[in-house]
């Protein structure tokens, strides 16, 4: 099996690894780094459950190979979680009951994070557009839209906080 040496940053930490050329980023994060907060739902790039941030932009970790990530900065749900509590987005998801089984949540949070970084005052339609690439089988999206709206409002009111 071809092994490839790769150096990247994951959640602010330097990572140096030798990975099988065919290892997906999702498997690398979950199995090699133990970051199991990223979930794999379809492995063909449709469901969005495995969405992470690569250099600040959302990416499907099931469609990327770990070997492609040389020099990249990867952020997973673990990296979006402040020490000892919930982020503004996570708190809003909890308050609005924007998750049921929780399997899509990490990907939704990554997508919402990117949206709010680009557009601090999204309309409901903007939010629906942004999360249209993330499937949720439980919530019917209603409360996810509400949660992102609430988080956006809170972040606008307190510009010091991160999403």
């Amino acid at each position, binding site marked *: 099996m071809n092994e490839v040496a790769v150096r990247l940053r994951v959640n602010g930490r330097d990572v140096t690894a030798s990975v099988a050329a065919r290892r997906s980023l999702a498997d690398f994060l979950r199995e090699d780094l133990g970051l199991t907060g990223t979930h794999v739902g379809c492995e063909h790039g*449709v469901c969005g459950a495995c969405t992470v941030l690569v250099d600040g932009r959302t990416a499907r970790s099931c469609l990327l190979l770990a070997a492609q990530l040389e020099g990249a900065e990867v952020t997973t749900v673990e990296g979006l979680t402040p020490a000892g509590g919930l982020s503004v987005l996570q708190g809003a998801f*909890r*308050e609005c009951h924007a*998750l049921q089984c*929780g*399997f899509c949540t*990490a990907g939704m949070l990554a997508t919402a994070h990117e949206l709010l970084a680009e557009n601090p005052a999204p309309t409901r339609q903007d939010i629906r557009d942004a999360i249209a690439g993330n499937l949720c089988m439980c919530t*019917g999206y209603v*409360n996810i839209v509400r949660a992102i709206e609430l988080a956006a409002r809170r972040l606008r009111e307190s510009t010091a906080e991160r999403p």
Partner: protein
Amino acid sequence: MTRWVGAPLPRKEDARLTTGRGLYLDDVARPGQLHAAMLRSPHAHARVVALDASAATRLPGVHAVLTGAEAAAASRPIRPLIPTPVPLPDWCLAVDRVRYAGEPVAAVAAVDRATAEDALERIHVEYEPLPPVVDPEAALRPDSPLLYPELGTNVLWHDVFAYGDVEGAFARADGVLRERFAIQRYASTPLETFGAIAEYDAGLDAYTFWTNDQRPGLTLAILAESLGVPQARLRLVTPDVGGAFGNKRRPAYLLVCALLARRAGRPVKYLEDRLENLGALMHACNGVMDVELAYRADGTVVALRVRDVADEGKNLVSPTQHNLIKLGNIVNGYRIGAVAYEAYSVLTTKCPSGANRGIGKPFMCFAVERAMALLARRLAMDPAELRLRNYVRAGEMPYTTPPGAQYDSGDYPATLRRALERFDYAGWRAAQARARGEGRLLGIGIATSVEPAGTNLASYELITGRRAASGSAEAAMVRVEPDGRVRAALGDPASGQGYETVVAQIVADELGLTPADVDVERGFDSSTTPWLYLSGNYSNKFSVTDVGAVLGAARAVRDKLRRIAAHRLEVAVDDVELAEAEARVRGVPGRGLAIRELARTAYADVLGLPPGEPPGLEARHAHQNPLARPVGADRTVRSQLVFSNAAHCCLVEIDRRTGAVRLLKHVVVHDCGRELNPLIVEGMVHGSTVHGLGAALLEEFRYDDSGQLLTATFMDYLKPTALDVPDIEVDRLEHPSPFTPLGAKGVGEGGSIPAPAAVANAVEDALAELGVTVRSLPLTPERVWRWLQNPEEVR
């Protein structure tokens, strides 16, 4: 006191689930675990002539290979839910014949999944293709190819039921509406796929399973029988479950893992990939229903006759359930005095059918509510008015349908009226008239439904003539720990329903604590969780059985706390109440003992206990819902027990150029009795409604004539995205059930039942100028566009 029950409390679970700290099946890593992959048949129907796996065994990294023949030698067949006239051994891997494309014939355990999949390519199988059986009506014909030649037919069950004077009612009716409806195969497709880890302890000859199986009680019975070990040597653990919706059950996969683990001497994990999930786990049954409504000129429906063909695919594990589960509620919410029902449960060479959110009722509702819409058209009545004329009235509750279901509570007319009001029905009818004047295709659809909860397995006696299992029950445990905090456990492993929160609310009220004081165990562990054969996360049963189990256990602990406090305070037990983490003497402020102090007595200072009181503060309780009963001598049947209801109003617009149906507005008014946590209830209504909208517009497992699944990825099998569905607007009535301990009723399935019918009715209404009749789903742009071009084909 109910300080917490009824509060819209955010969930306890979310602290871990929003931060990536949940523990789903694939997050469980057992020491030394191997990964399994399964080789699956490319043919829908074929004889397995030869299978050679020797090259796979030699691949480096492969630790065990299991073929169908080896599995048959090492285990017993999986017991079917109903006995068949001749034995049809159903092994965990296909042995000499495959009966759907995707049926597993061999499995490999290797150091990682990729190596296991590499090994599959080295297994050589020689198949002799046989003719597939794809269409259930064709499968009924005497000349059809047979899945099991020894059975002599593809029909697993056929029966005819009549309740009341059906023939007389049809003879006396002013008119009869006859129509044929079909429902497609679809599934709720939990985002986490199904799987298991099996570990074998050779010293104890015992197995441990980690799995997201949602029905552990029944699965444990099957595993013990098939592996030939006592149930005492099986342990089944359920971690966080990423959605289930009825789909997550396949004992065969657990058996494959167990046999591989025994062979390899290491734990073996198998988790479906999405292709395996969509093509081979479980589809909601497709089927055909012929419906006849006998009616009077004023719109009163006097009799219903149904012929219902259920396409089981290759389902031997749970066949006939799609028929049985409709029988009692086949009249939906209507007061129809005479009912005839003919059931066919038919095998075809397709993926096994099985439980999927709402099981059977979405088709019941689609057929009945479509028929009601057509009757309104025929009689030139408003569809709302026709329904209001025919509902069971609130004053008639509890109402028993002719086939025997008991509708326990609710106000169906008031539910629809509230929905019409919330939707602004009159306003939208006026807007529709204006839009039509402008050439726009705007449609309004109404559908209403009952939503049963709790399953009574006694109903299978109708088929088997004997009773193997019956009733509806669940078990729970509540324990005040020595530090005064509480631990609870439930035999029903949640898959997103928030039981850790709701159970904590219930227990907190009983013990005078807060939900923060109560830790509810995640999932299920057969070695510590109390459980029954009937235990599991299915059939909308939380309110019907689980709540009673939790309450029973909590009240036993509560009463013990009161007895200990009364003894120590030297007062009567009746004078002690629990509030604010204390046992207090009623009417004597300041006189009481902290629960923590009583726990110290119960566990440590046991000489302080009342005479004869055993140490400890733990209770287990199992609750059986009182409504279940055996099949009646008149063949009436209560297959389900407690009934919620809902009314959906839907507004659609169709694009003439593309045939695309856009959902503009969807209003749900539902009544699930007392809402234990309204935040969770509303979320379930949103989610289940969107399941129904997906079935209405997008989702279909399409097979070609050779039995190949054409929609086997999320690129072809389309799920609703945030852009496909509107904000679901929800309102509620609250008629508590007299037959559940807190008056709650089922809510998990409700939206999925009427939503497909509501959309279909709206689409037909939008196309009123063309006079088309909607007889099947999904209403994809392609189909609607064809109707727009050739409406005469679907009149």
